[in-house]
């Protein structure tokens, strides 16, 4: 049993990403969408807490949202996977429930 968590907030505006990561269990997945994609960048104020979780939790970024914001995959932290909307759907079906961190 595992959960897909979605985060759509920039981690520099509020602590939603942090709260999400604090409530993940091993084997869960986090998908960063909309402004949430900024949370996947390397070299930021939140990179360390994301990197720390990246071992026990799989972390993904929605490619179309990333591209819309002019970010390329090489700016992402190691271990983060890019997915399209089809990958989003796959994550939803693969995990037992989806929790949106709105």
């Amino acid at each position, binding site marked *: 049993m595992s959960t897909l968590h*979605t985060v*759509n907030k920039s981690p520099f505006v509020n602590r939603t990403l942090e709260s999400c990561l604090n409530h993940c269990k091993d084997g869960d997945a986090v998908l960063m*969408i*909309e*402004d949430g994609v900024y949370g996947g960048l390397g070299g930021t104020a939140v990179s360390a807490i994301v990197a720390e979780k990246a071992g026990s939790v799989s972390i993904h970024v*929605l490619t*179309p*949202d990333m591209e819309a914001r002019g970010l390329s995959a090489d700016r992402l932290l190691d271990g983060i996977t890019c997915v*399209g*909307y*089809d990958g*989003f*759907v*796959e994550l*939803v*079906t693969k995990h037992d*429930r*989806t929790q*949106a961190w*709105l």
Partner: protein
Amino acid sequence: MKIGVVISEGPYTHEAADTAYNFVKAALTAGHEVPRVFFYHDGVNVSTRLSVPPQDERHIQNNWTDLAREHGIDLVVCIAAAQRRGILDRNEAERQGKDTDNIAEGFRISGLGQLIEMGIQTDRLVMFGD
């Protein structure tokens, strides 16, 4: 798999209705079923047929109306949230003594029970909002 979708933020201000639209299209392409999309909070504003975005922008309401027609999706707008924000169908307009309705084709106004029912009847529930 049956996937239920909730949109709880208004169109144009927020990306939620767009992300949900792209997600639902991908889910249908992958062979899943999306029996219902429930609109709550400012998400109910997606359903007004009176919006007139510039021609070079996407028409969020039309997109949903077309997708629903093509795939038989039940687009449900929460009545309590809709009444606060001035979204009415003909019945409600008459009941409330208003001079017009404004709900777009393909959408219907109903109760919050439809949201709970969707949670019970689908395998997954995905929420898009702010």
